[in-house]
């Protein structure tokens, strides 16, 4: 089957497609010849008027958009061609792409699209090209493309962050964190607004718990914190949460969204990736250990290449290799192979690395210069060379639709030795099993032969008996040949049977022996190491050629490996050509001088704590990304982040201790009139919890949550398979572990995830959508999971010594779920519900409840889980 790539198609059917031809400088202008003169006249009389009349509307500086990147209003633009390079060469005699378009050939874009130019004009173009395509116009300054590039390079995000003095504010006493709060307050005051008051303690502890560890606080925690008047009470709470292992799980999951972590290949075939999970643990551990963010990035991009001066522990060396699996678990079409497969992988790697670290959509430049950002295709192919020189190690086995298995990285104690031993063992076992199968076959054949021989003997016996009987009856002469024949036939049959019986016996013994050996091998199974995905440099790293219009079959010039030309990182190391260049790329990205990296991460942290980034388009800091609401603060935070050793924990700490973070969610009418979207952070915007947090909160209330980290992943046990061949319930078996440990199989995430906007793990997602759809309500009201947990919560409530009567129980249930006690109306309604269910239970004689009253109280929990309050972070009004 011939498989065409997307970009190959793009090359065939673009809005404007031009054939690949080598660039050539326009004919030198200073040598005037007769041909030039004729050509120039032709240009001025025929070509230029045609260009002006028929082409400039879409292909000039003055055009609204320059279609296909083609500018025909300057000699430079005309010869340079559009996105796919020059359309013709001067002096060319055979038919070129320009002429094909003018002649409205099939498979090229007919130009002008509405109507063909008169034949005489097309002939003039042909002749003019043959005459060397002289162009009498002067290049009037930079072309639109160059202008755009120049402007784009001035874009704020490419300039280094600057130190700014703190602004002057009216209310000097307001700030907790001098830097954050002064900038925030100044912006609020500048609009004539005042921030709302602080959130109460109940609200604050709930907000901190969910934001930092993704779990609700227990009532005891609330009781301890609320009355604590110590000046460092909040700090102490924050530090405790930052140091809890749940912090890494909560914040690591944010990063897993960004790097589209998943445990299967997705796309049309979707193979399991049983060995993706070590990366998940690596990320959680990194956030818990507060690994400096620059180092964290270096490890993911080039952990396998980081210099090891012998000082690093084996565990660190291994963790660094695991870190690179981010380059291996991307979505892949395993049935394709060769250049196309490698180009697609490199594209995914470029996409994930640049969106996650720099919030740049570099992949757009695969087929054409970036439409908005200063990223030419040459930048893309400079990076592609780096990634094509890298071999992704994603595992999988060779099977139908999977042509391209690779090695994996053995991990854990004595991993390499274990791996070698198990490889040897597997090979031995395979040989033995093969032999066993062969022996079984042989034995079967021998038994068949024995059966045949036995039958033959039986018939020989019968024949002889018959012959003897006849002889007896007739007393025939002793010279009866038939009798002799029958006897010798019987002798033959007996001999055959004896031989075949011996053969069976021999083979049986052999089979038993082999069978024994196999059984022994199977019994003495060796410990298998864990495995991880990773990458390594290819044996021969090399630059790659530009693929015109993204079509790898249509190659342009070789592009030297390099970084983004518009992003200036002073003193960046040049690429070591004997390696892929990933290490230098990693250092270039994780450099304190890179204007984007720190800003992008600080903005991601801000986004998770305020619900919106200072730059709201968290994955796009490019020209069409949204401008920052607080540009100076963003710069200052980025500088602070780097100065503070790229510590995520300290940045999170600073932000949650700021006054801006601790505001109430209640709106003020005056402010609503000025800034209804709360862009300037005059209050805390209420936020919906994420899918994982909703599930974990339910399990916390029911008392079922298991905070232990499970070993490996469900997917590991499933083995290398097509996902569609696995029963859905095996992909997502029941589990009480934290949601971050549920398997992330592309297209088969847990139902609750799917409903509550878990992002597609095939896409880089720094920002999750928030929807409110009825299927969510149906899930909360009716699903087996929520019903089970409501029942378990009810049993827990009934067993609790903290509540001894209905009123107390109604209140305690609400404290578990919402962190507050019910109002009078709520309490009465809850008790009515409980009593109504109780009555129904009493009326129904059939049911005998294992736990009396459980159904009644579980109805109350079900109600609590259904409320908006359960899944929103908002003010708790006491």
């Amino acid at each position, binding site marked *: *089957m*011939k498989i*065409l790539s*997307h970009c190959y198609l793009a090359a065939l*059917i673009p*809005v404007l497609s031009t054939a690949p031809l080598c660039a050539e400088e326009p004919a030198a202008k200073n040598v005037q010849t007769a041909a030039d003169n004729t050509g120039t006249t032709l240009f001025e009389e025929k070509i230029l008027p045609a260009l002006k009349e028929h082409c400039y509307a879409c292909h000039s500086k003055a055009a609204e958009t320059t279609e296909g990147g083609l500018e025909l209003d300057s000699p430079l633009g005309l010869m340079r061609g559009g996105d796919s390079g020059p359309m013709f060469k001067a002096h060319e005699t055979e038919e070129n792409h320009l002429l094909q378009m003018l002649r409205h050939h099939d498979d090229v*874009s*007919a130009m002008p*699209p*509405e109507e063909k130019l008169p034949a005489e004009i097309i002939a003039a173009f042909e002749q003019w090209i043959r005459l060397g395509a002289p162009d009498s116009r002067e290049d009037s300054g930079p072309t639109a493309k160059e202008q755009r590039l120049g402007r784009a390079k001035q874009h704020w995000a490419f300039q280094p962050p600057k130190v700014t003095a703190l602004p002057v504010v009216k209310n000097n006493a307001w700030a907790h964190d001098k830097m954050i709060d002064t900038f925030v307050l100044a912006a609020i005051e500048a609009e004539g607004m005042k921030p709302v008051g602080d959130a109460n303690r109940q609200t604050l502890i709930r907000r901190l718990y969910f934001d930092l560890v993704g779990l609700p606080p227990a009532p005891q925690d609330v009781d301890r914190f609320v009355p604590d008047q110590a000046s460092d009470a909040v700090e102490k709470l924050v530090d405790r949460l930052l140091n809890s292992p749940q912090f890494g799980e909560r914040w690591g999951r944010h990063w897993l969204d960004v790097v589209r972590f998943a445990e299967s290949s997705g*796309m*049309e075939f*979707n193979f399991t990736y049983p060995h993706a999970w070590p990366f998940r643990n690596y990320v959680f551990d990194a956030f818990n250990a507060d690994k400096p963010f620059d180092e964290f990035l270096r490890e993911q991009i080039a952990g396998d290449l980081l210099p090891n001066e012998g000082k690093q522990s084996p565990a660190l060396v291994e963790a660094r290799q695991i870190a690179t699996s981010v380059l291996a678990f991307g*979505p892949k079409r395993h*049935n394709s192979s060769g250049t196309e497969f490698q180009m697609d992988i490199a594209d995914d790697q470029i996409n994930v690395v640049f*969106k996650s670290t720099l919030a740049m959509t570099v992949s757009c430049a695969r087929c054409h210069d970036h439409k908005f950002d200063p990223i030419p295709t040459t930048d893309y192919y400079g990076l592609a060379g780096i990634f094509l020189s890298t071999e992704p190690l994603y595992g999988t086995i060779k099977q139908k*639709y999977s042509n391209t298995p690779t090695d994996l990285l053995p991990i854990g104690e004595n991993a390499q030795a274990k791996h070698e031993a198990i490889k040897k063992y597997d090979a031995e076992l395979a040989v033995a099993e093969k032999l066993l199968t062969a022996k079984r076959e042989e034995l079967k054949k021998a038994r068949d032969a024995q059966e045949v021989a036995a039958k033959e003997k039986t018939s020989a016996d019968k024949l002889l008996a018959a012959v003897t009987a006849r002889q007896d009856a007739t007393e025939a002469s002793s010279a009866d040949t038939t009798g002799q024949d029958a006897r010798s036939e019987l002798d033959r049959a007996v001999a055959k049977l004896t031989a075949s019986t011996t053969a069976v016996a021999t083979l049986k013994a052999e089979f038993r022996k082999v069978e024994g050996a196999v059984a022994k091998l199977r019994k003495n199974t060796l410990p298998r190491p864990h495995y991880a995905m990773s990458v390594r440099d290819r044996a021969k790293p090399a630059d790659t050629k530009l693929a015109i219009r993204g079509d790898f079959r249509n190659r342009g010039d070789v592009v030297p490996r390099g970084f983004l030309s518009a992003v200036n990182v002073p003193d960046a190391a040049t690429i070591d050509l004997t390696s892929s260049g990933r290490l230098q790329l990693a250092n270039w990205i994780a450099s304190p001088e890179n204007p984007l990296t720190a800003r992008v991460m600080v903005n991601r942290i801000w986004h998770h704590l305020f619900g919106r980034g200072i730059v709201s388009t968290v994955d*796009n800091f490019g020209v069409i990304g949204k401008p920052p609401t607080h540009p100076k603060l963003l710069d200052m935070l980025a500088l602070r982040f780097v100065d503070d050793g790229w510590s995520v924990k300290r940045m999170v700490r600073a932000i949650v201790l700021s006054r801006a973070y601790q505001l109430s*969610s*209640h709106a003020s009418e005056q402010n609503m009139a000025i800034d209804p979207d709360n862009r300037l952070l005059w209050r805390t*915007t*209420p936020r919906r919890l994420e899918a994982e947090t909703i599930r974990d909160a339910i399990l916390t209330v029911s008392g079922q949550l298991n905070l232990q980290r499970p070993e490996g992943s469900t997917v590991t046990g499933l083995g290398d398979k097509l996902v*569609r061949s696995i029963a859905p319930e095996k992909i997502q078996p029941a589990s009480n572990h934290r949601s971050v440990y549920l398997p992330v199989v592309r297209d088969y995430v847990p139902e609750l995830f*799917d409903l509550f*906007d878990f992002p*597609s793990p*095939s*896409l880089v997602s720094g*920002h999750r*959508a928030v*929807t*409110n*759809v*009825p*299927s*969510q*309500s*149906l*899930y909360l*009201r*009716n699903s*087996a999971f*929520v*019903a089970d947990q409501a*029942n378990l919560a009810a049993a827990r409530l009934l067993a609790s010594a903290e509540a001894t009567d209905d009123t107390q129980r109604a209140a305690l249930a609400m404290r578990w779920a919402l962190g507050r006690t019910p109002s009078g109306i*709520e309490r009465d*309604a*809850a008790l009515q*519900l409980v009593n*109504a*269910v109780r009555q*129904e239970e009493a009326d129904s004689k059939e049911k005998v409840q294992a736990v009396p009253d459980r159904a009644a109280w*579980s*109805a109350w929990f079900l*109600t609590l889980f259904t*409320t*908006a*309050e359960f899944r*929103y972070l*908002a003010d708790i009004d006491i």
Partner: protein
Amino acid sequence: MKNMSANPTVSRRGWLQAASCGLGALTVNGLAPSRASAGLLSPRGPHFTGKAKRVIFLFMAGGPSQFESFDYKPMLKKAGGKKGMKKGTLLAPQANFARHGESGMWISDAFPHLAKQADQLCMLNAMSGPSRAHPIAVPMLHTGEFQFVRPSFGSWVLYGLGSENQDLPGFFTIKPTRTFGGPANYGSAFLPSTFQATRLGWEGQAVKNAGISNLTSHHGLSRDSASRSLKLAQLMNQRLLSQTEDVRGAIDSLELSDRMQSAVPRVLDISGESKETLAAYGVGAGRTDDFGRQCLLARRLVESGVRFVEVSCNGWDHHSNLDKFKSKAEEIDQPIAALLADLQQRGLLDDTLVLWTGEFGRTPETQVLEGEEKIGRDHNAEGYTAWLAGGGVRGGLTHGTTDELGYAATDGNVHLHDLHATMLHLLGFDHTKLVYRYGGRDFRLTNIHGDVVPEIFA
């Protein structure tokens, strides 16, 4: 593909400018997620008034043969057994063709019921797609892309038009395939999840056993208690309204879920249909029962205001056993004919666009698979047949031809992107303007391709 504008007298640029009304702000800026909520599914006006308001997509998974169905090839009949242009020998059509209806449309005797609806069909005999490999062609047909995960056709339509019935999901897929992209074929990718399809059953499951999850309480609460619980939750939700309007979405969605709980089973329950209707669709009649039920459900869903319904039928990949084509056709012939007649009778056909297609068609040559005795045909995406009905297309029209043996489209070619563009046009959209901004770029169903085919408009 030729550059063809819907209105040949307007220049392309003029055309683009003229069409930039309607969705305007919504599509240019994308949807602000915090504002999203329940309002996402409210009915919306398209760019211009479209003839079609909803879509029924009959997906024939595997790639049904055009030579045994809707592409009449007398020359192939004559040339059967001779050497073909590619590797194999030519295989004469394994069905007989006759003209049907006032239009005299050629339809094979594998579709006797559908033949009676010939004048409703707009036959596209010169379809083409990018690939004759299932894994590429299936996502291509469903999402306009195969390289990346992109929103499905149905989710684009729902995103553009919203839903007419707020008690039901706006996009259903009945018995979808789990292969070749599986859920991505009806997912919403980067569009809000509201726009993804609600799935009823899986491929291989009898539709009468298929259900929608969480419509009934696992908890076992009585109706009274469930309603008491709902009221109490809503009472508590009111408290939060002063802090965020988003809670309005949560309140609405709770109400909606309550209505869905009764509306969905109602719409899926076909027991109230008359005996005549059930018989017309072939429900309860062996071979036609399952697909008949699916078609009937499709009618019930669109009739209730669902915007997009996809109905799948697998088993059309006749590499061998082409002799079974007619019995496969029998499964769908009567049900589809009944669906068209039923829509017509209810006055729904005029604004319901029905699409029948596989992910590609088949070659005119014989294929003999190793180990198989029965012959078949291999895949072909360079020229195959799909048809449209209702929703503003010209019934009885046969558009486009392949070469006389049926290898490739020669005239009136409709590429998959063109089909998408044309269907969006019929729904009232300029396909270049129905966009969603994701990751810094405006995405659309037709990527950078697609030309509307105005020749097939009524």
